[in-house]
């Protein structure tokens, strides 16, 4: 690894990821600038920096989603690169394009915008994957406008499921222009199909102005796996293993993740789990090579109980849970820092190591500590944190933007994520025991505006440890 990187990175994000990027920049000897909004001024990612003076490196903006503000800060502070983190602009190809094409171009730390564009479109991803014979969820790969045609497809999908001995065959009818769970209806009997089809089509027409509809098999009993890829601008592509992100809140927010993706110690699978993991890694690398992927990215997979993998989508960004994969990987007997790698590769460096130098060992678990009421539909809790303490071990680490030395009001504008805790061990069993112990030792106190105590999801996290890597 060389340490002659040049540049100044604008960190266009908030919370723990901003801090992680800051630290990575420091490690690489890069200058950085952070931005913040009014609601975040007490956050650690701001307080650790200088918000005034000649060497100011934290700048206030109106919103993290206001590109003009962000670029104005970048120009004013003479930044040369921009790191979008996750969320916000991280998968917005227009933002990436604007950053790279503007008169004062910035290096976008992430895949190039063309890749973001082509993989950001789920339908397009599916089409490309199908062309490469990578399995995707059975169904249409382009919007359907014709009712007769749609019914034929639906019938075929239902028949196929019966042929596969699936107990309750069902399909999903989705608005092609929709997203985030809107305009999705389930159909279990073909007799119901036309009614539902019309309903979704009308909804889509009304809501999105386009009556296109997608039809897919509905998968019930599955695990959600991810493959972490790291690629460079020089055509090098390696993976950092798989992870399992099946445990999610009702809003499809991941809560507990573990790596590797499957482990026989947790569950007796109906299939050869090592083979499936290898398969999805191979498929992921194949698609990445095809689109000339050039930065970190995550390939999301659905694996059915019978061991069939289906490519779900590609996240063209660094993910929250990237460190889960890093904690089972060893480069020169050390855990890699994927954010550091991302910045390094994003700035155009070569990887400097090969796939075979990455060693996989042990297991790791990530716990997302969130102030939410898991019994009441994961409702966010808003209030002030008075005490915030995490245990420290050489088999754990914590990423948080919440200060431990002073009170902190959770801003209502953003999700009430408090911290990410990572625990690892030589085996999955050990990691689980350590995670349970770790959770017990966490101290978080606080109160809301009515004086009520803080509500967190710690209990939920602990209860779900047993479910890890199972069906």
């Amino acid at each position, binding site marked *: 690894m060389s340490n002659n990187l040049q540049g100044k990175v604008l960190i266009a994000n908030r919370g723990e990821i901003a801090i992680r990027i800051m630290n990575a920049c420091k490690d690489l000897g890069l200058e950085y600038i952070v931005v913040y909004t009014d609601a975040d001024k007490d956050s650690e990612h701001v307080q650790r920096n200088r918000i005034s003076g000649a060497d100011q490196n934290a700048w206030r903006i109106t919103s993290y989603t*206001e*590109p*003009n503000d962000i670029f104005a800060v970048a120009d004013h502070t003479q930044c040369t690169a921009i790191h979008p983190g996750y969320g916000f602009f991280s998968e917005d190809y*227009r933002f990436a*394009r*604007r950053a790279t*094409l*503007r*008169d*004062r171009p910035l290096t976008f730390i992430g895949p*190039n915008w*063309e*890749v973001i*564009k*082509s993989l950001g479109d789920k339908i*397009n991803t599916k*089409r*490309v994957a199908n*062309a490469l014979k990578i399995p995707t969820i059975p169904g249409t790969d*382009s919007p359907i406008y014709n009712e007769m045609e749609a019914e034929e497809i639906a019938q075929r999908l239902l028949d196929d499921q019966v042929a596969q001995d699936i107990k309750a065959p069902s399909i999903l009818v989705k608005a092609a222009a929709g997203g985030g769970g809107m305009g999705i209806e389930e159909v279990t009997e073909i007799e119901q199909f036309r009614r539902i089809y019309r309903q979704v089509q009308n909804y889509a027409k009304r809501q999105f102005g386009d009556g296109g509809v997608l039809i897919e098999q509905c998968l019930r009993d599955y695990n959600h796996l991810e493959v972490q890829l790291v690629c460079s601008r020089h055509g090098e592509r390696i993976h950092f293993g798989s992870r399992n992100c099946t445990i999610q809140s009702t809003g499809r927010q991941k809560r507990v993740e573990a790596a590797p993706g499957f482990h026989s110690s947790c569950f007796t699978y109906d299939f050869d789990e090592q083979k499936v993991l290898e398969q999805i890694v191979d498929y992921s690398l194949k698609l990445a090579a*095809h*689109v*000339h992927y050039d930065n970190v990215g995550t390939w999301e997979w659905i694996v059915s109980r019978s061991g069939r993998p289906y490519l779900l989508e590609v996240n063209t960004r660094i993910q929250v849970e990237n460190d889960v994969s890093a904690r089972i990987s060893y480069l020169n007997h050390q855990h890699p820092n994927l954010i550091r790698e991302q910045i390094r590769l994003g700035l155009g460096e070569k990887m400097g190591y090969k796939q075979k130098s990455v060693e996989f060992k042990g297991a790791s678990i990530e716990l997302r500590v969130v102030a939410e009421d898991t019994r009441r539909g994961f409702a966010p809790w808003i209030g002030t944190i008075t005490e915030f303490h995490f245990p420290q071990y050489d088999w754990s680490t914590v990423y948080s933007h919440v200060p431990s030395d002073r009170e902190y009001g959770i801003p209502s504008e953003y999700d009430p994520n408090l911290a990410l805790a990572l625990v690892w061990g030589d085996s999955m069993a050990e990691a689980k025991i350590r995670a349970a112990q770790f959770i017990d030792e966490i101290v978080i106190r606080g109160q809301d505006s009515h004086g009520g105590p803080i509500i967190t999801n710690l209990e939920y996290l602990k209860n779900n440890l047993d479910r890890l890597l199972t069906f």
Partner: protein
Amino acid sequence: MNALLKQLHKIEERINYLVQLKDYSNWGNLDGFKETCDKLKLTVYDHSEDQFAGEIQKLHESICFLEERAEEQLTPMERVRIVRSIQRFSLKDILENVYEDYTELGGEGDANIDPAMVCAKATIVRRIKNKPYTASVMVIGQETGHGEEFRNGGSCKPEGNEKALRYMKVAETEGIPIHFYVFTPGSFPVEEYPGAAQQIARNIYTMSKLRVPMISMISEGGSGGAEAIGLSDYRMMCSHGYYSVISPEGAAAIEGKVKEGSKVPKELIEVCAERLKLTATDNLALGTIDHIIQEPPLGARRDDFAFFAKLRADVMRATDKVVLGTKSFRAFRSYEIRRKKAETEAQELQVDVSWDLNDDEIKRLLAQRSQKYRAMSTQGFSGLPTPTEKFFRRMQEMTEEVYFTIRYDILKNHQKQVQKVFKDVSGEGTVILKRVTSPITTALEFLSPQKDKKFVRPQLPSAGGALPPSSAQDPIELTDTYTSPLANMDRTITCPNSEKYGCKDLWVPDLFGEFAGVCEICGHHFALEHKWYLKNIFDPDSIRLFNSEITAENPLGYTGFDERLQSSKKKTGRNAGNMTFHARIMDIRVVVSMLYSDFRNGTVGSAEGEKFIQACEVAKRTKRPLISYVHTTGGIRIQEGTLGVTQMPKCTMAVREYIDAGGLYIVVYDNNSYAGPVASFLGCSPYQFAIRSSRIGFAGHRVIRETTGIDIPPDYHSARNALKRGHIQGIWDRREFRRNLYKSLMTMGSPHLYYR
């Protein structure tokens, strides 16, 4: 003494008239004469009668002298002032004095839908060989009302034009001639239904094929307002009237780029009046009128009875002339012989010509009307082919006509009918019969040139994109084919609706590239250059321009216009502001006329009109749909004066003939579409659509404010409001333009279209 006093009053009136005519400029010591006049009035009884008579005589002689000089040196602007004088005759005076009897329809004074428009059923009596012949006519015209406030100076509201249209149709039903009298400074520019522009368009559209003889007389012809009732078989003009594309003041304001509220310099108005060629003689020379009615010096006033007698004779002769033109040759010849024998004018009218027409005559009337307008303003452009070329072109057109008629009308209809018969027969279930007929149908299908009416949709090559495997692209989406040069700038634009909808500032490369100039949040459309449409609406490489050699000229020799025209030609590399071309949309062949802003702001002059008409003719011949895409039009090109104005009836006539022949005429407005074209050949279309955020109207904000005093809201002309008022049939998103156009082509129009 009393008689003398009366004379003095008369003289005073004449002086005042002259003062007004000369715009209060103390010309020829008029002020002095006026003073003398006043002094005389005050000192009537200080003089003896003879003395007084002598003074009056002296005054009379001086004024007579001045009047003669004034008449000799009458400038165009002075003619405008004559016309605007409240002493000038109005339609009511004509109804009283020219016609025997009249009944006003739809109004009494100010109790009227629009007092500025008067419709009357009148009788006109001809005395032939001492025998009276009474003929009934419909009289339609604007009433200036000698300064009556509620008449609005003859500026007609859309309702008034609508009323006129109704009575034109009544006249058509009753089969009586219509006499139009144009006394308008212009139409009242309000958009409320029926809408100034749209109503004028409807009027012109109807008049172009009205089945009765129509005569018009222009005293004050202000552009659009005049055209609303000005289309006729014989156009006459008063010698002291004016007929113009715009008021001289308006032209001067445009010419001098005068800011609103500040005064337009008088000299500039005079100059513009001169340049606009708005007098009767000029118009006769330009061929926009057929005949001048001579008025007494300095114009006819409300009590010039001799003039009314002359007018009556002229109007009758004009009607006779139109009617005779439609008669078969023999009748016409016998009339001509008698006319030549007649010595005096009075004798000339001693023939009774029946004003009723039979069907053949009506057909001839319409054909002649069409020819008459087709021949107008041909001097306004250049680039017509040489006679040899013309001959070949004519031959080609004829062959085309025969070819397309055979191909689409005869063969296709025949085939359709045969198929229908077979279908009916076989539908009855006689299997044997079907077995017998099927070889014949197959053979017929095989023989016919129209083998399959289904379109083979070509797979368009997907341009750009990071991924090598081209995704199955919907051919109706032509994205990424062309990027506007506007997109090559690293800056942001604030959406005008940002306060209302919270739109984010738009980065220019995104906005004019991927978003096709549309704000993502609120859907506001930013203007795009016309090339974008050429690339994104029509099938790739399907555009074939025609008539590109027709060139806009400066027929009036408008000072300084040659250079401006030249710079436009240089800028665009084209010869006129109307692009006409053949193109395809999803393999449907269409003919397109496109007015675009780069060339003199899309104004319509003779060249543009000619190209439009030829596009209509081509579309008619080939039975293809005609699309008029209006990128922007600023109205009629004022520098061409009335030659420009005649484009309104001329183009409408052509497009009406195209529609009547079974064509599909779709108009799509974009950006700004105002004035003349909207009030004629665009506004008459049954299918008018607008691109979102475009503006459609008759007159701009400033003109409305200046002429009506009404301060209109900023979105007065918006497409949405036009839709609310019923002027257009729909609003299209620019991003879905191609899709919508294709849909329209498939769903609208008659079975006469070639692809039906």
